[in-house]
Each structure stands twice: as C-alpha cells, then as structure tokens.
C-alpha cells in the first residue's frame, strides 16, 4: 500500500470519512513528523508564546505570574542602566568582531586560493581555533593569556613594555573578547574558500585577454561574485555575535565585569533569569533580543538587493 504517492485523482474509492482519507493520504507524512511536531509545539512554539506572555508579568518561579502590563518594557527602556550597558557592550562586540573576523577570513581565503602548496595544512591550522570554539578550556586559556602576569604581558616585557592587566581593566576587557572572536575566523574562511572555487575560471581568462589587471579582476569579478557568500557570512556571524555568552561568562566569573565592561546581552539575561529569578523581566529581555535579531535580518535582506550579486 502506498501512502507516498498523491494518487492522481483518477481512482476514487468508495466514500470514506475525512479521518480515514486524511490517514490514507497524509498519514505517513505526519507520522514521520511526529517527533518534530511534539518538539515544535511543546518546546518551541508553546514556550515562545508563553515567554511573550511572561514578559508582561512579574514572575519569580515560586508564586504565579502577576500581570504588570508593559511595566517590564518601560523599565528596560527608561530605568535600567544595566540594560543600557549590556546593549553598548553587545553592539561594540558585534561592530568590531564581525567585520574584523570576516576581513581576516577573506584575506586568508584569497591567499590560500592562489593554488598554494600546502593548502590543506594551512586550512587545517586556521580552522582549528574556530572548531575549538566556545569551550570553557579556550576561555580559561584566554583568561591566562591576558592576565596581568599572563603570556601576552610576559611577551611584551621582552621589549620593555609593561602591559596592563587586560581582562581586569574595563578599558581592555571587551577587546580581549573581540580578539578571541577574531582568532576563530576559520569557519567563515572555509565558506569563503568554497565560494571562491565556484567562480568560473574562464571569467578570469577572458578578463586578462581583455587586459584587465589583477586588482581590476578582483574588484570586478572576484568580489561581486563573492557577495552572496559575504552576505551569508555577515548574517550568520552577526547573529552568533549577538548570542555570544561563554567566553564573557568565564572571563568575568559570571559577573560581566569589571564595571559591566563584558556584560554581554545574553549574560545579563542569564543573570536576571537565573541569578535574581526575575523570569518575567528576563522574558522581556529575550523578546527584545528576538526583535533586534529579526530587525537586523530583515534589514540585511532588504539591502541585499543593492549590493549582493545574484547570478542567474
């Protein structure tokens, strides 16, 4: 018995109830989707709506949620210096880490795409930090590297430079996290490399026959044809940067300090939810994050038509 084919409606069997018809035609599909459906309604859609509701309440897990209207949002917008600080920190992080990371990724990918000998080795080495990613071990390492008597300052001391205690100085602590993010440029680099390989060689041949210089070829062929990949990397890496959590948590010992200088948005949300058990307030923060990410994504897709080159 085949439930797969949507039987071309020639065969009309005897009259069946709607349920039987549904099971015969669509049953298999919905059976296969059953686990996902349970997850979607129970763990995604349901909770998302619930947190939208909670964001208008005061809720501490112990007593029932109490409706407070827009009070959470009003306080976030007008009377929460920590929210403002976390926004500043997060936007600083996104604005610096994403462009730097992608610039490195593109530069190295371009260098490697020249048919370099040893490409697999270079690619592997540059990819490794990105694979190690957000593990606590890497954050621990970073904490030591940029400590007052850490590796970086020991190195600088060789040149008579006395470096500050980078991670406990509010002027530098966030920058060390930007450096960590840039260090992990491996996976966008691999995506750039794959994109560069897609560019047909005969375009370059034709261009050089017409006497186009290498740099002209880069600006007129490579870069335009790579814009879809650039676009993809920008969107993915930006969303990831907005959600960064572990390194800031480990380096600041969960506080977001010194003086809120590493208070990533997600870290602040975590503190509100699981440090102070202000679940309603944290839900409002979560929905603001969703709106920020949605606005950013919509903006990217709307502007894409002006700078992303889509080949037919």
């Amino acid at each position: 018995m085949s439930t797969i084919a949507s039987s071309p409606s020639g065969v009309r069997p005897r009259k069946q109830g709607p349920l039987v018809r549904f099971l015969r035609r669509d049953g298999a599909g919905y059976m296969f989707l059953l686990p996902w459906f349970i997850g979607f309604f129970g763990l995604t859609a349901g909770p998302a709506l619930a947190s939208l509701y909670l964001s208008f309440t005061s809720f501490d897990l112990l007593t029932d949620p109490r409706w407070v209207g827009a009070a959470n949002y009003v306080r976030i917008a007008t009377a929460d210096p920590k929210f403002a600080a976390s926004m500043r920190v997060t936007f600083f992080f996104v604005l610096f880490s994403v462009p730097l990371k992608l610039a490195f990724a593109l530069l190295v990918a371009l260098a490697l795409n020249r048919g370099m000998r040893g490409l697999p080795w270079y690619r592997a080495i540059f990819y490794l930090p990105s694979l190690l990613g957000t593990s606590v071990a890497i954050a621990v390492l970073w904490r030591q590297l940029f400590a007052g008597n850490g590796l970086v300052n020991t190195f600088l001391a060789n040149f008579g430079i006395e470096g500050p205690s980078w991670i406990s100085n509010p002027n530098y602590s966030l920058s060390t996290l930007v450096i960590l993010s840039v260090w992990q440029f491996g996976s966008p680099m691999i995506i750039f490399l794959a994109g560069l390989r897609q560019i047909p060689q005969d375009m370059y041949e034709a261009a050089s026959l017409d006497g186009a210089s290498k740099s002209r070829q880069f600006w007129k062929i490579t870069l335009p044809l790579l814009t879809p990949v650039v676009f993809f990397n920008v969107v993915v890496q930006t969303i990831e940067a907005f959600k960064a959590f572990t390194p800031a948590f480990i380096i600041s010992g969960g506080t977001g300090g010194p003086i809120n200088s590493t208070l990533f948005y997600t870290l602040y949300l975590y503190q509100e939810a699981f440090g102070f058990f202000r679940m309603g307030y944290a839900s409002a923060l979560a929905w603001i994050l969703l709106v920020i990410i949605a606005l950013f994504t919509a903006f990217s897709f709307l502007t894409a038509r002006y700078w992303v080159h889509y080949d037919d």
Partner: protein
Amino acid sequence: MDGNRGTEVVGLDDKRKPWVSLLLHALLIGASILMLYPLLWMLSASFRPSQEIFNTTTLIPSTVSLEAYPRGWFGLRVDFGTFFWNSLVISVLSVAGNVMACSLAAFAFARLQFRGRNFWFAIMLGTLMLPYHVTLIPQYVLFLNLGWVNSILPLVVPKFLAADAFFIFLMVQFFRGIPKELDEAAMMDGCSPWRIYWRIMLPLSMPVLATAAIFTFLWTWDDFFGPLIYLNDMRTYTVQLGLRSFVDSQGGQSDWAGLFAMSILSLVPVFFFFLFFQRLLIEGIATTGMKR
C-alpha cells in the same frame, strides 16, 4: 615554485613572480604560528610546575612533569572521571536523538506527499532564526514542573524531538540529491515509506548522517549554557561545568597547571574529530555554511 597551478596558470600578464608566493608563504607560516601558539603554550603549561607557568613565553618546560594531571583530575570534590562520563553520556544520547528525529522529519519533508508540507517546512525554517533565549524560560519552568532539573533529561530529550532544526534542513538538502527513481521503484514494488526510509534513504545518506553526528557531538560536548542552567549538583556536572568550578574554586590563584591539564583533556575529543574527520568537518561547513 609554487603558484604555477590553479588561477596562476592563466593570464597573459602573469609574470610568474616567485617572490610573491615566497612572501605569501612566509606570511601564512607566521600567521599559523600565531594561531597555534596559545594552544601549544597551554599544552606545554600543563606539563610544568605551577610556579613556572607565569613569566615565561617558551614552549619547552624546564622539567616535564605529569603531576598536574592527577592533581587536576582529583582537584574538586567530585573527580573529573565523573564529569567526562556525564559529558559522554549526554553527547552520545544527543547524537542518537538528533540523527533519528531529524532524519525522520527530513525524510517527510524531502520525500513524502502530504497536505501542509510546504507550510510546515517554512515554519521549520522559521524556527532556525529563533534565538533560543525566547523559549528558554518557559522550557525551564516546564522541565522544573516535570522534575527533570538536575538530570540529563532537559539536555537530551529535546534532541529526540528534533529541536535542532538546523540538522533537519541539512538532511533535507542531502535527501533531495538522492535520485527519486530509487524510492519510486521501491514504492512500485510495494515498499512502505518506513522501509524506503530505513533501507534506501538512510544507507545512502551516511555522509550527511556522519556530519550531523559529529557536529552534534562537538556542540553538545562544548555546550556550557544548557548544563549551567539545568545541572546544579556537582555529581551531574559535565566537563565544561567542572572546568568552570575549577576556575572558581581556585580563583585562578594556585593550580593553573592542573586547570590547564583538565582543559587539555576536555579538548581531546575535539582534536580527535579534527584529526580523523577533518574532511567531513570542512565539507560540512563549506556546503552548508555552519557557524563553526
């Protein structure tokens, strides 16, 4: 010389400059050293006496000692063996859950005809954009009411419900590349969808299943946020939580070598996959654009 392959072959104006590729190699080797130095340094630091960890930039320890490993292993109230076992159990179960649940859903989306398919597929793609923070708190309340907090269930059960929609998408893409004639022929022969899924699709999809399995394992192994929220009893900690407790308990003052030793051990599974499955990892990223 290098540079006489690939793009450099073409181009009448290409003067074939060997010094360019020499310079490029020099730069790339320099960058490689810079990239790897912190990792190598951490490895070497785990073999040093603690007082030697600061104020040196060399990679070779003056005396090689393995003491930090047992010291770190038993450095907390609960030993790291427990943490590693917990991490392993959670990661392996997550792999099983993700591969099963996501491939079932992907098969339905890629191959089965049913009303509402496009609608649900769009919804599924939509959930990819949803930051998990939006579902975090109600999920926590749910698991709290179920009495699941402090167990691995909140970390593992969602995987069996295909909560990582990204892998559904990945598998749908792969399944669509498998010739439809195969399952159409099987269907003619009276094969049920279940048998087509089990006997035709899955065996032909080993590359994508392996990719999904490896990334699930690595991401679960590295996950810090989930365990941080759901596991409070130290006996249930994962390796990542154990490391974090190590940092906190020592205040970073005394036993850096022990901390580094455990950090290195926590990275061993990642290195393992890096060494033996690098092709799959890199192809996975190149074809799907995964974030790490």
